[in-house]
């Protein structure tokens, strides 16, 4: 057994509804298919939705770890997609505005749990809240998902800028989601990358793109994981390509 420290990748976007959770879940499933030990953590503490995306109904969540005495090992569940999953609680008001000690505690327990995995994917919440920033700091790879909408581009840029200003991080991996084609994705990436270069002084890294296909909303609606239910579809193939790149991060 190799004893490498795990890749901890945060998936953020700034704007909600860009596809963070879809990307997290499908990439995790791809990585698991490739034989990796993968953990997905739902870090959207107030509006958890990984559980909805994969159609599970967890009994315990991070809330019980922070405010109860639950061990995070007992909260983590195995999914039928081959990866493990730490759920968060949806609609728990006290989880929305976590205080310093709470976030520190989550980071501490996740830090220990992460040692059992090759890759950990942190599906962070929308916005640029303190907890989103802290999960980005906790991660050793920062992934930003964006699409072709103006608000998505602006929020993605704001997220990058704040993380850079706050922690000095200057390495971000971009996934262009819901794009028409690779050409458009590259174009969006090149433009936003040049803006980063111009105003912040560092380039971005292209991690991949996922084209729009009507099978995506359909699979989400049916609580299916696309790379399993439609593994020959273009978006599934693109997710797989992204996962392939992430394996090399190890």
């Amino acid at each position, binding site marked *: 057994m190799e004893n490498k420290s795990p890749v901890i990748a945060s998936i953020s976007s700034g704007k909600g509804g860009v596809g963070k959770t879809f990307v997290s879940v499908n990439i995790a499933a791809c990585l698991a298919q490739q034989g990796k030990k993968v953990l997905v953590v739902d870090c959207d503490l107030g509006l958890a939705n990984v559980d909805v995306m994969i159609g599970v109904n967890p009994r315990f969540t991070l809330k019980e770890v922070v405010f109860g005495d639950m061990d995070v090992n007992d909260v983590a569940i195995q999914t039928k997609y081959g990866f493990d999953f730490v759920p968060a609680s949806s609609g728990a008001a006290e989880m929305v*505005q976590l205080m*310093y000690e709470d976030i520190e505690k989550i980071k501490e327990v996740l830090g220990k749990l992460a040692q059992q995995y090759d890759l950990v994917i942190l599906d962070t*919440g929308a916005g*640029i*809240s*303190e907890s989103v920033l802290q999960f980005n700091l906790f991660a050793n790879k920062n992934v930003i998902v964006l699409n*072709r909408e103006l608000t998505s581009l602006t929020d993605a840029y704001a997220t990058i800028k704040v993380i850079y*200003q706050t922690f000095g991080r200057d390495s971000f991996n971009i996934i262009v989601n819901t794009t028409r084609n690779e050409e458009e994705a590259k174009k969006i990436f090149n433009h936003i990358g040049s*803006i980063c270069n111009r105003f912040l002084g560092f380039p971005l890294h292209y991690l991949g793109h996922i084209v729009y296909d009507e099978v995506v909303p359909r699979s989400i609606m049916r609580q299916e994981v696309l790379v399993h239910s439609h593994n020959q579809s273009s978006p599934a193939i693109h997710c797989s390509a992204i996962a392939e790149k992430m394996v090399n991060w190890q």
Partner: protein
Amino acid sequence: MMLMNRALLPDDTQPRTVAEILSKSLSEAPLLTRIKESESRAMIILLDHLSPNDRQILEKSPHRVIDLEDDLLKTIAALHEENVYLRSVALIDSLTGLYNGRFFSAQLETEMARTRRTGLPCCLLMIDLDNFKTINDTLGHLEGDRFLIQVARTFSQCVRATDIVCRYGGDEFVAILPSTRLFVAIRIANRFRKAVPEIPGATGCNVSASIGISEFAVSSPWDANDFIQAADSAMYDAKSKGRNQVSTRGRYISINAGLESVNPEERKAISSVYENVQSQGDSDGK
């Protein structure tokens, strides 16, 4: 001094005499006019700010200003030294060696201006020792003073090199944490809070620290007084919740708070990307 520079720069082509240069600068620079009575001092100041051409003229002249006044240079050096000392007396707390309240007030304005310019928040720590009076009452004021010196030293060790620790008066201390978010400020405050009960010299007095923190963000409408008030009321919160704890005020980064960090120029650049991508999509015939 900038004014003098400007006054001396034009008309370098015209030949000048020492008297001309001096009288011209003295009349054009208000600052110099004010200290005209001690003209020799004005000349020394002038030398630093002369244009190369004027300097050359002065150096060639028989009345070289520097050579005239060797003693004057010494006097100025002595005055400068005294000035530094007086300033330190005015800004340093004599017991603890920390900055005093006067320095704090001036520096707070500076740091708030820095936040407005850079967009990075700053934090204010307001610290009040719990049960400090017990030391004075049971061990005497001398021990109380010794303890305060220890507290000052401990506090200085707990903060970072860029943080500014001041004695606010009595057993109250403040610290300005430039370019620091609340989250980080809490960590630093706790570091100090945990160190206080370990400080020797107050055995049995049960001394601890109640700490209030306020964060000033670029979007905050606070002035310096509001900023201090916020830290102060947070500190009273910590006291009323049972002491020996940290309490906070201000923006605990909330959803979308970071979006204000995108400035208009950046927004414009992003919009142009958007338009570019959109128009390309449309011309695809979709």
